């Protein structure tokens, strides 16, 4: 043994002890590692498993197919059409994004603004997210692109769905439109679909009123994604519930005819089934193209709509209120009959002017009508007769009668934006104007002027009620999905048959007897005759001086100062089926365009007679709908 052996022995002893200590330390660390593994993998397994799944699985909302809107014969008024789109995926554009856009630009037009927007979107998104370059391509451009697809790296062609309104302007105010979700929509709704970038919600008309039903329920696609959000594969798919179809009572044929007949006038028209209140046509003219709002309306297009003095965005049928003028006289007549004022033999002498207190009230006919009974007063639309009659009836009875006929409140039609109009009374005036009722105001109200304001839809309902004797209310939506909307048979009006018959007789005289205010524009095909009532709503005030020199004829006034022309009618006279109300803003000219329109529309409607044709509603005539005998 060498010299150092003794010293090495002591070193070895120390080394052994220290190694043992180190081994103990290492064992301790290994125990810590094993303990930690036990904690993570055994004790907290559930929590980490959940977190791993949450990491991996991304739930993506699927927009359900939006329900269609159809007319009574299942003609599609709103549907989804194919939207041909061009998408660009940045990471696949091997030649560079600008080069790809240039290549697309050689085949279809891309504006500079659009190009900037695309580049911005690409910069904001991950490189594997496809960005929409152009949408709503026509088939020709689309096929040109697909032919060149091999030379367009990163470009994909895609067929999406977009809302379409095939009848555009004709139905704009009924169907409405869809548009991008606004901040307000998101605040008010908690449907997760609202957060989808391309989602559209109903903004007007049926699209708005029945948005929830038409929208459907969101579907969910569970996809596996990696840490960068790239989809690896789809794990499961719940397509959601497609939106329900909404069936309207509209007959698109009549609607189209009416819309065309109103032409470019600023006008409104409603056609209604007098027994059920089913709305056959509901036109506000001019309309607008709802398709514009879906794809995004340009500023110029928007300005054109808002600057138009014919107010295309206003649904005049139910959001426009007008003094009904003489079309209100049947209400006054009915009040007089019901109150026992207009008893058999009741007459009023018209000298052309009616003096009440120290005021003079003029008849529209200078020189007067002479002695008239109620039937003659309606036929000739004598103002003096109704001044006197209204005075005798009193505002309270007049107001009560108007209310019984459903006026002064909304009809409850299934469209947004309906206005109630005004049926004035003592209480109403005290509340709104804080003044006492003047008796002179009763006279004015008796001829539908003054405070009285009605919507064309209310006028149509009034006509239907007089024609049928039932308290019908307008119905526009028959069924949603396969479910008919509840609709009760209309109760009888609280007026005697004799009173109603007397008013109808007067309205018959208006159109079908020589001397009647609308006799010149009557329907003279046997069996299709209509009964009606003309009306003029004064837009400007006629001064005493003007009256002295002769009232200016409307034809001689600028358009916006002319009176509004109104007409209500039902047909056929003998067994009424259809009621119609027409308003032409500033249309009170001698040719009575509104009467001509009503005549043509009622004749067309009767000849087609949509009520006779079995409707295509998806439900068999439910027990709670009114059957016709």
């Amino acid at each position, binding site marked *: 043994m*060498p010299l*150092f052996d003794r*010293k*090495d022995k*002591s*070193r*070895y002893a*120390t*080394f*052994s002890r*220290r*190694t043992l200590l*180190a*081994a103990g330390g*290492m064992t301790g*660390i*290994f125990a*810590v*590692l*094993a303990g*930690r*593994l*036990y904690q*993570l*993998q*055994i004790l*907290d*397994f559930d*929590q*980490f*498993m959940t*977190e*791993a799944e949450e*990491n*991996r699985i991304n739930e993506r909302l699927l927009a359900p197919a939006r329900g269609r809107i159809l007319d009574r014969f299942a003609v599609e008024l709103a549907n989804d059409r194919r939207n041909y789109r061009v998408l660009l995926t940045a990471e696949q554009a091997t030649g560079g994004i600008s080069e790809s856009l240039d290549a697309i630009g050689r085949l279809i037009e891309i504006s500079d603004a659009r190009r900037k927007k695309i580049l911005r979107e690409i910069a904001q998104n991950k490189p594997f997210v496809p960005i929409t370059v152009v949408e709503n391509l026509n088939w020709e451009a689309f096929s040109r692109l697909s032919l060149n697809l091999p030379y367009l790296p990163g470009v994909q062609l895609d067929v999406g769905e977009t809302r379409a309104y095939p009848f555009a302007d004709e139905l704009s105010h009924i169907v409405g439109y869809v548009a991008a979700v606004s901040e307000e929509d998101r605040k008010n709704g908690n449907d997760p679909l609202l957060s989808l970038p391309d989602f559209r919600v109903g903004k007007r008309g049926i699209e708005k009123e029945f948005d929830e039903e038409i929208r459907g329920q969101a579907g969910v696609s569970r996809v*596996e*994604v*990696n*840490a*960068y959000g790239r989809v*690896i594969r789809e794990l499961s798919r719940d397509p959601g519930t497609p939106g329900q179809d909404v069936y309207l009572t509209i007959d698109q044929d009549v609607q189209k005819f009416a819309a065309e007949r109103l032409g470019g006038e600023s006008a409104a028209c409603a056609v209604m089934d007098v027994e059920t209140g089913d709305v056959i046509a509901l036109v506000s003219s001019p309309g607008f193209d709802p398709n514009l709002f879906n794809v995004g309306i340009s500023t110029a297009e928007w300005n054109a709509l808002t600057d138009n003095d014919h107010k295309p965005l206003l649904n005049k049928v139910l959001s426009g209120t007008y003094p009904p003028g003489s079309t209100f006289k049947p209400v006054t007549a009915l009040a007089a009959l019901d109150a026992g004022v207009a008893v058999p033999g009741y007459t009023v002498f018209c000298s052309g002017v009616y003096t009440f207190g120290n005021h003079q009230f003029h008849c529209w006919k200078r020189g007067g009508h002479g002695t008239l009974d109620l039937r003659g007063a309606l036929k000739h639309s004598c103002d003096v007769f109704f001044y006197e009659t209204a005075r005798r009836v009193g505002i309270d009875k007049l107001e009560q009668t108007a209310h019984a006929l459903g006026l002064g409140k909304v009809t409850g039609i299934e469209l947004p934006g309906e206005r109630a109009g005004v049926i004035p009374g003592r209480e109403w005036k005290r509340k709104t104007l804080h003044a006492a009722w003047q008796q002179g105001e009763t006279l004015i109200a008796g001829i539908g002027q003054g405070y009285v304001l009605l919507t064309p839809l209310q006028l149509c309902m009034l006509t239907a009620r007089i024609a049928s004797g039932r308290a019908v209310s307008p119905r526009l939506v028959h069924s949603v999905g396969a479910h008919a909307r509840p609709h009760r048979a209309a109760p009888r009006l609280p007026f005697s048959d004799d009173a109603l018959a007397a008013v109808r007789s007067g309205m018959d005289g208006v159109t079908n007897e020589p001397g009647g205010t609308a006799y010149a524009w009557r329907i003279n095909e046997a069996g299709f005759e209509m009964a009606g009532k003309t009306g003029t709503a004064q837009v400007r005030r006629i001064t005493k001086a003007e009256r002295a020199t002769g009232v200016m004829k409307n034809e001689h006034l600028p358009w916006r100062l002319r009176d509004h022309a109104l007409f209500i009618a039902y047909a056929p006279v003998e067994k009424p089926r259809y009621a119609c109300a027409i308003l032409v803003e500033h249309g009170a000219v001698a040719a009575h365009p509104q009467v001509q329109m009503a005549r043509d529309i009622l004749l067309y409607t009767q000849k087609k007679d949509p009520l006779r044709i079995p409707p295509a509603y998806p439900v068999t005539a439910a027990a709670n709908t009114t059957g016709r005998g």
Partner: protein
Amino acid sequence: MNATPNIAARRPLTLSEKLLEVDWGLIILITLAACAGFAMLYSIAGGHLRPWAGPQIVRFAAGLLILVAAAMIDIRVWMGLAYPAYGVAFLLLLVVQSMGHVGLGAQRWIDLGPLQIQPSELMKISLVLALARYLHGLTVEDISRPVKLLVPLVMIAAPAVLVLLQPNLGTAIILVADGCSLLFLAGLSWRWIVPALGAVAASIPVAWEFMHDYQRQRVLTFLDPSSDALGAGWNITQAKIAIGSGGFSGKGFLQGTQSRLNFLPEKETDFIFTTLGEEFGFAGSIALLILFGLIIVYGIRIAMASRSQFGRLVAMGVTLNFFFYIMINGLMVMGLIPVVGIPMPLVSYGGSAMMTVMFGFGLLMSVHVHRQVEIPLRSAGLI
């Protein structure tokens, strides 16, 4: 394997005798651990040898050759090479400090075309050799003498500081740990050890002052990972989710969602253990730890059987170096210490660490093969 006592004392072994002396059991354990790594690298590549598993297998094969080759060389030769190797490694560290390639924000590499040298890895082995050689020449009493102690402390501190400046905190920690544990094993008096530990504890606030921002951030996010769940806390959070979601038996080979879907950062290198935990669960993780534990037991046995202090210290130095890798990486991926860039030995993808570890095992094997060699106290080794 101890069938032929004292043969080395009488005459040098022939090459074939040395090959017979190689402990093939240890090599099998090492290979098994490496195979776990291959499997994981194969899995995170989505079931492909490219880009990781294939090259790793090639490297491991090369590493095995280095291991056996190193084992064939007499430990006295290694002793003779100890100081020159340390000198070269130190010079290389100085070189990277001045002109090294900057990778991952740290100067760590010397780029020689196809060959990239990581001097800090070289230093780990060289430091063990040099310290073992120095301590071999000291008695137990000598070690605790201040004058004698100063030399090894400088030997440890100088490269550690250079590595820290790169900045590579993980390797610096390992260098210091390797060096200090050798001093401890050689018998440094507790009179030095206890105050030193106290000083380390007291210096933590000072160390904080000298840390890089990213290092501080790592410490802060470690203390509260949720404070930055998508930023720096992401690593820790996702690693824990991966391991934890493995459960007892794991999701199955190639079924780990965390790694396959890229939720795991540095999944092929420092965080490879998380994939093992995810796919093979508690059972698989513990199995790998047991494998590592057995390798360490082999290392301790080899150290205890060596008849020279140099051999013992080299064997334990290499074994502890291996252990420190496992400890730091394991504690890090399980969220017990802040993130420092230390791979899991044998398992993580990467050439430098693999070579260092395999070369270390080669030295260990050399100690085993030459366990009967006695070296005089004043010896400078062969050469």
